[in-house]
């Protein structure tokens, strides 16, 4: 007959009202749990889409390259840096790239493009460019030139604009970074790429690294090294939370020197990082609004229940129940209400996330949030987090019931008993 037991019984005196209130509260928790799981999945997908495109989880550049894109700012010894990077436990894969601007010409048509010189085998390890080919194939891995002098993969949109078809021969021309002399290569279009990244699809030519190095005259140098990092959830103790800038910075700090700067994707893609930050803020606002609405429901329900039971609080006071015990009784009832609704919401939200994780939310490539999504967004169910949110709701329910509880302690027993 202790306070908690009495509170539990009181809760079920009006089962319909209790269930309705608990359902409203539970739906609030459910929406928060499902939304949070979805947002975690969305953020993860955004990060992975960014990483799988051209950014990776981190990049190494020569000082000043990222800010200026000056082609002469190169990493002089990329092989040594690659080896050093691959030796770090957190690094899953690393690939060097040569980057420059070039003129792509076919017949009397030409267009300025971003030139990426890559190692196909390494690139396949750090990103998913190799799987984004929508026509033809990706660059072959062997280094030998074919009869036409080399291969190139073009962005699908670029190819469409220049009316270039698979198998066509195109000329790439770039300026030697040392002499300024124009160098050209005749290449055969072996594949068309669609990444969903407008900049890439409309203005990119991808060639093997040695081809780009010849065009730009960089020799063995490279412009960037792209890193793929291990995820902490998949590799506990070794990996990092790939959303966490500070964690990544700390993990890749050994790769920074006077001649090379290692930076997380947040620095390379500040727009994506900013959007994620804004999404976090938006999520906070959403959660606050849900709290606010639910708080009104709880306050209304508790006030109604207390109003109906004024005589009963008068009775308890008449029997000598101290005000503190009545205060505790009302808060205990609120706590139980929160636990019932919160548990329903946490379990329901978790199950919903599980289903959506299995099914996936496929928005297609047409829906873009700075990046576009090639793969379905899958919520990341997190049961402890779900119950953590439910616990917050329980505390909130108790807090918003404090006024009602206080009012219950102020009931004048004589007056209250006359109301019955």
């Amino acid at each position: 007959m202790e306070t908690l037991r009495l509170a539990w019984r009181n809760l079920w005196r009006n089962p319909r009202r209790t269930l309705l209130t608990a359902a409203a509260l539970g739906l609030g928790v459910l929406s928060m749990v499902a939304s949070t799981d979805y947002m975690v999945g969305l953020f993860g997908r955004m990060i992975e889409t960014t990483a799988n495109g051209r950014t990776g989880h981190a990049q190494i550049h020569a000082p000043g390259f990222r800010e200026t894109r000056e082609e002469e700012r190169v990493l002089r010894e990329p092989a040594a840096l690659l080896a050093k990077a691959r030796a770090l436990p957190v690094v899953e894969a690393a690939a060097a790239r040569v980057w420059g601007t070039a003129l792509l010409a076919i017949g009397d048509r030409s267009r300025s493009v971003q030139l990426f010189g890559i190692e196909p085998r390494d690139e396949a390890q750090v990103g998913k460019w190799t799987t984004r080919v929508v026509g033809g194939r990706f660059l072959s891995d062997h280094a030998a030139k074919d009869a036409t002098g080399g291969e190139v993969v073009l962005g699908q949109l670029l190819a469409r604009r220049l009316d270039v078809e698979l198998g066509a021969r195109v000329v790439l021309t770039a300026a030697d970074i040392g002499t300024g002399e124009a160098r050209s290569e005749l290449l055969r279009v072996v594949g068309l790429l669609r990444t969903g990244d407008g900049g890439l699809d409309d203005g990119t030519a991808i060639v093997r690294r040695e081809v780009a190095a010849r065009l730009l005259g960089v020799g063995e140098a490279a412009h960037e090294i792209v890193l793929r990092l291990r995820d902490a959830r998949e590799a506990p103790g070794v990996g990092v939370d790939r959303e966490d800038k500070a964690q990544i910075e700390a993990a890749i700090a050994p790769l920074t020197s006077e001649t090379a700067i290692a930076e997380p994707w947040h620095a390379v893609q500040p727009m994506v990082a900013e959007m994620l930050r804004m999404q976090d803020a938006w999520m906070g606002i959403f959660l606050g609004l849900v709290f606010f609405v639910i708080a009104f429901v709880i306050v209304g329900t508790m006030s109604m229940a207390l109003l109906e039971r004024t005589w009963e609080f008068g009775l308890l006071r008449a029997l000598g129940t101290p005000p503190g015990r009545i205060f505790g009784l009302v808060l205990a009832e609120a706590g139980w209400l929160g636990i019932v609704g919160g548990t329903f919401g946490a379990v329901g939200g978790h199950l919903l996330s599980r289903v959506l994780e299995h099914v996936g939310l496929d928005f297609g490539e047409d829906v873009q949030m700075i990046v576009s999504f090639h793969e379905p967004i899958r919520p990341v169910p997190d049961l402890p987090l779900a119950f953590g949110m439910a616990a917050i709701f329980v505390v909130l329910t108790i807090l918003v019931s404090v006024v009602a509880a206080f009012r219950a302690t102020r009931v004048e027993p004589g007056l209250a008993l006359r109301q019955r």
Partner: protein
Amino acid sequence: MNIATSPQPATTAAAANASAAGSVVASLRGVTRHYESSAGVVKALDGVDLDVMGGELLAIAGPSGSGKSTLLGLLGALDHATAGTIHVEGRELGTMSAQESALLRRDRIGFIFQAYNLVPVLTAVENVEYVMLLQGRDKAARRARAVEMLGAVGLGSHIDRRPGELSGGQQQRVAVARALAANPAIILADEPTANLDSHTASDLLDMMVGLNRDFGTTFVFSTHDPMVMERATRVVHIRDGQIESIEVRR
């Protein structure tokens, strides 16, 4: 003001009640209770002087609106007098804090209400245990006492029923058991038979007379039921907030 709160065993309490027989348990001196209403000031009680003697079965009788329920509310520390002094076991109620009043009600005053007023979610035995729970008695002792009191009011086989599962008469018996269980110095019964049929009311009153006789418990009834007045040792007739007459019955 410090109030003794330690619970007393049943036998000790009965002995204490017996020793209090004939002495003044509660007294009212010049007690006035005025209410403000839209029609002006209502004088519910107007200069009442009264002593309640230990072990008596006192009936406050009068028509509706005469002030008898107000008098009981003041005596039970449920309300505050506009003027005058009220003492229960020598302690003046007007100087008590809300907490002290609550403790006095818990330990020294038992209530029986017209509308039974049992806690709906508690079983009969839990309702009877409730005050003892507040007193801090251990579970086994309060359960044994509650079962004993329910047996004394003839509800030994209904201890696990909730109020909704009991008849009006049975609920009022539970209320009597609850009022008696904590060995109060005085039991205030506000028109306890008003909602009962005459047969049930008669049985209940006989039971309370028996308890008064056996335990020496002081009962104060507010009533306009002749059956109550027939069984009372003293009847105080009250009208328009003033004592009209006092009639000693036995």
